């Protein structure tokens, strides 16, 4: 018991003594755990969202509709067609306009029974199912209008209370709805110079009322259309059923197989999911870069500390325990915080895609995610402990004590070259040359960030063009832009953390060399500029490499994966690329200036 207390006390004291380092370590592990949490939550939330919606809502295998009451008999016959095992409907559908506060949108209003249907029973995600006078909105549509349970909307001049929000697998979510009214629909943006034929619905939303309410909205029976949902004995043959049955009726009856709904529904979701996935990968790489700088730097430092503890009589076991306790404390805090932040941020990303795919499941932590994230954090702690502990246990106490951290590397040609340069550059190159691995990590970290940004620029420009081309609607573009934005913010934050971590590690590592240079006559300013330049030069290299080949390759990779058509994308023009590189260098210079300034001003006699 006493020894546990001793271990904890020693660990806490060391953490307190090196607060900045401990904070940066926490930040780096936190970034890694947050990223991992985000990635896992998103993976869970986005895996087969249509499938899960279909399962939760008894999704139909085929949806058939007719536009005239005279065809209603044909529709009803489908209920007994061969291969059909279950059906719901026919339900009446009417085209209309929905008004809420200052917005108006075209809608398809489907009349439903208050009881549970055997096929296509929309899953209520908020509130309850239809009742007389109460309307239920499709989730993505409600999201886009920013309408929720309790609000009032006007439909066909009558006021209805929103009693629920629901998702369905019978139709792609707003704004990709399929058309089940005779008036016809058009989705996507419409060029300003084109007038729509009268009565055509533009980007209609889907709402549900009771059958009675729908009938009361209809001026006469001819304004009603009808829809029926079918379950087949063999869902894999849905398309064949559509071809066969539609053919029997001279192709007069529009039908949709679940496969074609799936394709429409997941089109956009797939795009945003790929964005998220690639983003998660880039973030993971950045987190690894900052972790290896910090933990690697600390490990060398700890070897000496282990020697010190051994010298004053600590057993190797005690010494390892102190180290482990230190990292465990940091790792547990980081894992908890990372899980929390990740779980809180994930909905920011999935909210949009959940609306898109009409997924019934929302982003949430699962035990496997919690376990994995905690395991990774603890794994970092154990590795960071094991290496110095084993190293110090193997080496004699004396040599562990004498081990001057990690000996700096000698890069002869850089030292010779730097002798010809002005003093700040001379010192900067030598600072960089001393730790080539860290410089490489710095370059990679910036290159990853910049290539990420490059792709974001391309995608942003691409989305900017979209309303004109009609491939995506404005709402969809807004959703994708939102995803891009969150992505950019996380990417840039992590890159900033990296830049600060790397600079701080450099400053600590160069304490002695900086003090010596000042004792030999370098000014504080020269040392500060050198420390900052040692970060900015790799940043410049990283930024250039991040544009080419980084950005080009990443964009090509995304295109290959998504099967996208790169001809449609506008690549950034040279001045934008130069701007990107310059901005990166400026930001890195700003971020590193404070630690570098502190490093350059440190009193010489405290170090020498």
């Amino acid at each position, binding site marked *: 018991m006493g020894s546990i207390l001793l271990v904890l006390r020693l660990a806490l004291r060391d953490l307190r003594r090196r607060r900045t380092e401990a904070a940066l370590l926490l930040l780096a592990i936190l970034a890694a755990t947050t990223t991992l949490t985000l990635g896992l939550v998103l993976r869970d939330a986005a895996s087969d969202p249509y499938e899960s919606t279909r399962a939760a809502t008894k999704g139909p295998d085929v949806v058939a509709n007719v536009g005239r009451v005279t065809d209603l008999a044909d529709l009803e016959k489908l209920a007994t067609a061969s291969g059909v095992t279950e059906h719901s409907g026919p339900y009446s559908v009417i085209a209309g306009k929905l008004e809420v506060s200052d917005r108006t949108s075209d809608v398809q209003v489907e009349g439903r029974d208050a009881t549970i249907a055997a096929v296509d029973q929309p899953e209520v995600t908020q509130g309850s199912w239809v009742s007389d006078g109460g309307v239920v909105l499709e989730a993505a549509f409600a999201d886009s209008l920013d309408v929720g349970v309790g609000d009032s909307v006007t439909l066909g001049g009558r006021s209805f209370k929103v009693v629920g929000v629901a998702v369905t697998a019978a139709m792609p979510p707003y704004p990709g709805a399929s058309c089940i009214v005779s008036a016809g629909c058009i989705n996507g943006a419409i060029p300003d110079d084109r007038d729509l034929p009268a009565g055509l619905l533009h980007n209609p939303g889907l709402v549900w009322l009771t059958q009675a309410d729908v009938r009361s909205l209809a001026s006469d029976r001819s304004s009603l259309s009808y829809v029926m949902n079918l379950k087949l004995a063999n869902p894999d043959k849905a398309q064949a059923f559509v071809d066969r049955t539609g053919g029997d009726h001279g192709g007069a009856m529009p039908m949709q197989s679940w496969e074609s709904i799936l394709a429409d529904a997941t089109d956009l979701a797939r795009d945003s999911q790929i964005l998220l996935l690639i983003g998660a990968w880039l973030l993971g790489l950045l987190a690894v870069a900052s972790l290896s700088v910090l933990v690697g730097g600390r490990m060398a430092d700890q070897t000496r500390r282990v020697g010190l503890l051994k010298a004053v009589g600590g057993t190797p076991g005690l010494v390892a325990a102190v180290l482990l306790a230190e990292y465990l404390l940091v790792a547990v805090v980081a894992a908890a915080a990372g899980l929390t932040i990740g779980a809180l941020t994930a909905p920011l990303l999935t909210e949009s895609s959940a609306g898109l795919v009409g997924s019934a499941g929302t982003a949430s932590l699962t035990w496997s995610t919690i376990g994995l994230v905690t395991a990774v954090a603890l794994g970092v702690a154990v590795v960071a402990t094991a290496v110095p502990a084993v190293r110090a246990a193997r080496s004699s106490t004396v040599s562990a004590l004498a081990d*001057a951290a990690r*000996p*700096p*590397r*000698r*890069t002869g040609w850089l*030292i010779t070259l730097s*002798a*010809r340069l002005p*003093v700040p550059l*001379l010192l900067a190159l*030598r600072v960089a*040359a*001393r730790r080539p691995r860290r410089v490489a990590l710095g370059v990679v970290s910036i290159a990853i960030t910049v290539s990420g940004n490059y792709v974001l620029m391309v995608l942003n420009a691409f989305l900017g063009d979209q309303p004109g081309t009609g491939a995506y609607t404005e709402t969809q573009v807004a959703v994708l832009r939102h995803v891009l934005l969150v992505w950019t913010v996380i990417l840039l934050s992590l890159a900033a953390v990296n830049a600060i971590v790397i600079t701080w590690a450099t400053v600590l590592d160069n304490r*002695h*060399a900086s003090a*010596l*240079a*000042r*004792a*030999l*006559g*370098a*000014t*504080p*300013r*020269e040392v500060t500029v050198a420390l900052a330049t040692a970060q900015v030069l790799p940043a410049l290299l990283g930024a250039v490499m991040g544009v080419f080949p980084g950005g080009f390759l990443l964009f090509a990779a995304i295109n290959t994966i998504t099967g996208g058509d790169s001809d449609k994308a506008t690549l950034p023009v040279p001045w934008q690329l130069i701007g990107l590189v310059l901005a990166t260098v400026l930001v890195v210079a700003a971020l590193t200036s404070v630690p570098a300034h502190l490093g350059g001003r440190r*009193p*010489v*006699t405290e170090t*020498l």
Partner: protein
Amino acid sequence: MSNAADTPVLRALGLRKEYGKGEGLVRAVDGVDLDVVNGETVAITGPSGCGKSTLLHLLGGLDRPSGGEVRLNGRRIDDISEKALARMRRTDVSYVFQSFHLMEELTAVENVELSALLAGRSPRAARRRAEELLDQLGLAGRSRFLPSALSGGQRQRVAVARALSNEPLVVLADEPTGNLDSAATLDVLQLFKDLHDAGQTLIIVTHDARIAATADRKFSMRDGALAGLED
């Protein structure tokens, strides 16, 4: 040795340095007056913690005093800017440390030329001067060695060569033999004798009676105060 006509190269007047405050106040240097004339070797001895290193740091402008003044060649250096102090360290004073303080990744000659490079000499001139100095100090064959491949005595000779590379007015040495075995100590001792004979102004903090014996004047330091010693 000193006579009235000699203006001191280095002069300290009522020099004080305090650390901490209240109960924990430490008077590391407590009212030191010292004149050092050109070409003179001054030795300072005293127990550990009496303020010797602090005094050297104040004399060379590595640290700022809490009170009193330091004059180098008649010019006050205790109140000038960090930048001016740095300039002064390039050409006027230089240090030799107990633990050498060589850059591990630089060869002997690169360590020596660094001071000259920082002072803005051309790479070629700096290199020539460094080779010359290493030659003079008997390290000609070792100029391409890294410090880790040199013995303690050789490392200290490299450090002395670095201290001399900009022909400073004063060399300040803080226990230069403190980390050396007796053979290496004799080696460095001879080196300081040679420097003295060549007219270099030297202030040496040392525990070693043999080094102290070569000095023109000796002081003993205790609790931050300096007292002259007679031979």
